[in-house]
C-alpha cells in the first residue's frame, strides 16, 4: 500500500475538506495556485480540457477568472475574488462556477504547511447550506468525472 496522498471528505452540513501532500516546498505549491502560467498547466480536469483564459490577481480584492474548454465547443468558467493572502502559507478566496448560471458562492481557505517530505495542503470549502454542497459535489462529478464514468460503464 502506498501512503494516502489525498483525502476528500464532508464536514458538518456545509463544509468540504480536501487534503493533499506534495513533494515540493510550500512556496512552490503556493505559487502553483496563484501564478496564471503555472495554474494553466495543471488545473484542467479530464484529459483533453484546456484553460484558454486564466486570470489570477493575487492580492486582496484581486479577481480570479478561469475558463475551461474541451476543444469541441463545450466549456464553462469560474469567477472569484481573493480575500486574504499570506504568502506561501494561506489563501482565502471566494469562487463560483458559471454553468452558465452562477452557483452559490463557495468560500475557500487553503493552507500550505511544511511537512517532512514537502507540503501538506488543506482546502476547506464552506458552502451556504447542505443542499448547495450536495449540488456542488454532484456538479463536480458531472464535469470532472465523465472520463471515470465512461470507464465504469466499460467495466459493467
Amino acid at each position, binding site marked *: 500500500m502506498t501512503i494516502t*496522498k*489525498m*483525502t*476528500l*471528505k*464532508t464536514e458538518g452540513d456545509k463544509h468540504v475538506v*480536501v487534503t*493533499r501532500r*506534495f*513533494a*515540493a*516546498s510550500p512556496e*512552490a*505549491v503556493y505559487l*502553483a495556485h496563484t501564478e496564471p502560467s*503555472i495554474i494553466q*498547466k*495543471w*488545473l*484542467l*480536469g*479530464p*484529459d483533453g480540457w484546456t484553460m484558454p483564459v486564466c486570470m489570477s490577481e493575487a492580492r486582496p480584492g484581486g479577481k480570479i477568472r478561469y475558463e475551461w474548454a474541451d476543444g469541441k465547443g463545450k466549456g464553462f468558467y469560474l469567477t472569484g475574488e481573493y480575500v486574504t493572502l499570506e504568502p506561501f502559507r494561506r489563501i482565502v478566496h471566494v469562487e463560483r462556477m458559471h454553468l452558465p448560471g452562477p452557483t452559490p458562492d463557495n468560500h475557500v481557505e487553503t493552507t500550505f504547511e511544511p511537512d517532512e517530505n514537502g507540503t501538506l495542503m488543506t482546502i476547506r470549502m464552506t458552502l451556504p447550506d*447542505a*443542499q448547495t454542497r*450536495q*449540488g456542488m*459535489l*454532484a456538479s*463536480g*462529478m*458531472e464535469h*470532472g*468525472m465523465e*472520463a*471515470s*464514468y465512461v470507464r*465504469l*460503464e466499460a467495466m*459493467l
Partner: protein
Amino acid sequence: MQNLNDTFSALSDPTRRAILSRLAIGEATVMELAQPFSMSQPAISRHLRVLEEAGLITRRVEGAKHPCKLAPRGIVEIDQWLELLRKALETNYARLDKVLESQTVERKEKP
C-alpha cells in the same frame, strides 16, 4: 450484484443523480423533489420509480404522501461518487506533481 446494470442505468441520468444528492440531506416528498428541478410531479415520479427499482431509494406511505429516502445501497453509491470526485481531483494533482517536479529539477540548488 444481479442488478448492477439497473443501478448503472438508474445513475446514468443527471436528474436522478441530483435527486439522490438531495436525498443525501434527508427524506423528501415528490413535491419537495419536483420543486428545484422545475419538472412535473409525474416526471419526478417516473425517475423515483427507476431509483426504487434499482434499490437506491425506499418510499413509505404517510397518508397521501410518499416520502422518499436513500436506501443503504444509495448511500454506498453516494460514497462511490465521492470516490470518483476524489479521482477527478487527483488527475489535476498528479499533473501538478509533474509541474512541481520539473521546477525542482530546474532549481536544484534551492533548499
